[in-house]
């Protein structure tokens, strides 16, 4: 060491060694550092967890890849925004790493999330959060409604009476679908009736409401825009043993079953598996601002009984159940 000190080069060599060691540590820790285990909360509206099976599977596939686990959290009710806010609060307080939300009320949940200023990824699925800067993976709802309307106009006569079940319109997805359908059929059918539950109604149950409407009003075609309403309508028709032509936007097993049984004449169906997959990918991917997913619009298609077993449709309508 004396030689080195004499020449004054010891600091230079020592610095070199330190730099090299830093590089080693950086590489060693960088390469071997395992991605930490994360948790994703998939918060959905409604109490039926099976209805979200496709969505969950899509998200779960990504979570397995990304070393994360996912919990599907349903509500006690269909569209109680306060309950959903409580769930969101609970999950964030429990330290979830990402939120995937199917909002029961777009504006309320959207503004709630915006005000919370969360530092974790928040992704909306199925329906937007009403706030422009919030990421959402959803089909083109207006287009879905419009195309279903075109199908209706195409397949039905121009004098039919069309009843539109206007439920859950606090969700942007439903409102947009209804708007699309209205734009497509306006002035192209005989009559349009809006079946809308009165806020003060003593019959909060949708099925009962629909049964009442079915009994009290004559209609040729009924249109529904979401799973719960479609399922309720199917139950109402079955209960009343009535057969109306139903055009629906839904993804439930019951809807598919009734499509086969011809109770539903045309079903606009979206790929919720993709929705879940992309939402989870967005939530868990380290490159958070990944442009790849920025403009993803979930595809949809209109299925009838005749084509429901086509190769493309059956993979959509009949997901593998593990």
């Amino acid at each position, binding site marked *: 060491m004396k030689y080195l000190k004499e020449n004054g080069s010891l600091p230079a060599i020592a610095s070199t060694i330190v730099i090299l060691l830093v590089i080693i540590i950086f590489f060693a820790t960088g390469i071997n550092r395992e991605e930490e285990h994360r948790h994703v909360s998939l918060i959905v509206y409604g109490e039926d967890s099976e209805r979200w099976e496709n969505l969950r599977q899509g998200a779960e596939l990504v979570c397995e890849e990304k070393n994360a686990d996912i919990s599907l959290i349903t509500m006690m009710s269909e569209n109680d925004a306060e309950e959903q806010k409580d769930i969101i609060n609970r999950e964030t307080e429990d330290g979830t790493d990402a939120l995937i939300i199917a909002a029961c009320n777009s504006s309320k949940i959207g503004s709630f999330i915006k005000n919370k200023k969360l530092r974790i990824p928040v992704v909306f699925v199925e329906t937007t959060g009403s706030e422009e800067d919030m990421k959402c993976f959803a089909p083109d709802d207006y287009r879905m409604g419009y195309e279903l309307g075109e199908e209706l106009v195409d397949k039905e006569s121009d004098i039919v009476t069309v009843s539109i079940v206007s439920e859950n319109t606090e969700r942007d997805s439903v409102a947009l679908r209804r708007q699309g359908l209205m734009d497509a059929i306006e002035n192209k059918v005989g009559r349009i009736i809006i079946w809308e539950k009165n806020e003060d109604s003593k019959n909060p149950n949708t099925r009962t409401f629909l049964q009442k409407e079915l009994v009290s009003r004559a209609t040729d075609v009924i249109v529904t825009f979401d799973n719960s309403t479609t399922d309720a309508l199917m139950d109402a028709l079955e209960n009343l043993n009535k057969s109306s032509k139903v055009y629906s936007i839904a993804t439930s097993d019951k809807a598919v079953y009734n499509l086969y049984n011809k109770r539903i004449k045309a079903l606009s169906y979206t790929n919720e598996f993709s929705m879940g997959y992309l939402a989870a990918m967005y939530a868990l991917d380290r490159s958070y601002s990944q442009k790849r997913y920025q403009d993803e619009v979930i595809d949809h298609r209109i299925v009838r009984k005749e084509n429901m077993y086509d190769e493309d449709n059956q993979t*959509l309508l009949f997901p593998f159940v593990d």
Partner: protein
Amino acid sequence: MPGFIRDGYKKRSLQWTISLSFTAISVISIAAMAIAFYTHSINTIRENTIKENEQIVDQVSWNLNSYIRNMMSISDTMCYSVIKNRNLTAERINKEMNLLYDANKDNLTSIVCATEDGAIVAASPVSSRKQGVDLKKQEWFTKACDEIENLHFSTPHVQNIFDNSNYRYFWVVSLSRNVELTYFGNVQNGVLLVDMNYSGIEQMFEKVNGGGVGFIYLCDGDGRIIYHPMQKAIYAGLVKENNKIHADHPDGAFSETFDGQERDVVVKTVGYTGWKIISVTPTSELAPDMGQMRNYMLMVAVIVLVLIIFGNYFISYVVTDPIRKLEESITYLEEGFTGNVMNEDDIFIGGSHEIRHLGRTIKSMIRQMRKLTDDMVREQKAKRKSELDALQSQINPHFLYNTLDSVVWMIEGERYKDAISMVTALAQLFRISLSKGNNIIPIKDEIIHARNYLNIQKVRFKNKFSAQIDIDPSIENCATIKLIVQPLLENAIYYGVEHMDGEGEIKIKGYEKDGDIYIAVSDNGMGIPEDTLATLLTDKARSRGKGSGIGLWNVNERIQTYFKGEYGLIIESELDEGTTVTIHLPKVPIDEYRKEDGSK
């Protein structure tokens, strides 16, 4: 080598150059070695992974073959043991069919026997047929009818034959074949369908995909996917698979780049079905192993590198330190040259044999140089002495000639006493001139000498001039070069007072001023013209070789040779007024001079 690198090298020390060069070579060598080793290791890992995957694929193939053979044996049993030659008009086949179904219901969804018109002859389990379903339009049926001699395996599809409550549906893989149905003794074609539960195949593959790297999937001969761990994502178009290419590939292992990902692929065809079991291992999934290997390599390389840097530095120090010390001693020596304190003992001798030899050689060289320098100095001194002697010898004949001329003149004039007196003075003059060989004598001797000279010249010039000598006693014992006053007197006589009309006057005044000694010889002669005065002490005066100049030049040269610097002659002259030539000497007592001279 680029100029800037070359220049950089030139500017750096030898140790730095050696260290850097060795380190650079070491880094390159280690990097090359590490890369080679790493590449080899990675290739080994990949080869091992491929071998492992081949084994797994073989195992899966064996399991799948068993499963398929089992299904085929069910179909064969139904076909040959139950349906063939059975008069279906009178006998039912449901019982046997149910037995077979029950025995294999874990793997089966249903067994169906239908006529070529699509009418169901028998089915197990018993279930109501869906309204409006035309079996003839289903792929498994048409294939069985089109190629009656073969067994046909479909890709996974949702069974669309029987009604099912609770919205249940079944994903199945259909095994269909043509069978001969006997009615009333007539044989007609029919189709036997064995719907294998898709989940059986799915579970088989899920087990092998549960751990390890990569995945295994199954497709038919046309590349249509039967099982894939990302099947749903593939159906949704979210994930892509290179299944068409894989299906066309012969059995074996190969590498490919698909969707920007490098992958190792193993393909194996499943017996009768023509299905392909395909193992895919993205190279990136080997990263954990590769990462460990890379870390290890990096760690070893860095440690070795650090050791090499230290080693290089130490070795280069050991090698170059003696050279550096030698260089430093030579630098010191160079400084010593200018300071005249050169000492060859300061030359460093150490280090390796070569450097010691170099040091010794330089030392020897310095010694020789020093000897040469001393010799040169000595020679120079000798030369100067010789020159001085020559200068002095230039005086003696000159003066002797003049004096003897005077003596001759006296004898001719029969002034024998004067001649005797002059010769006596001359003898005294010569005695002082000799001064036992000393060039430096006391001023008092020089003045005696001058006085004798003046006495001689007075005789010669018939007392044409008077002389006064005034010497400060305090300087009488100080050193002077001998015979420097006499030439001045000679010039004063010959060129100052000789040609005067009146009596000439010569004064010698010796005094001390500002620590130096001045001996002024003045005359009241004609003086020296200004242009002559300017050249009196220059080489021109010497080159003239005659006249007053040569004597003065000689005296000045002798004073400067001995005492150097500012000492010498000062000549002041005014025409028709006279000339004063002043000797400027350092004040050095004669005893001190002799002591110093003796020590030298």
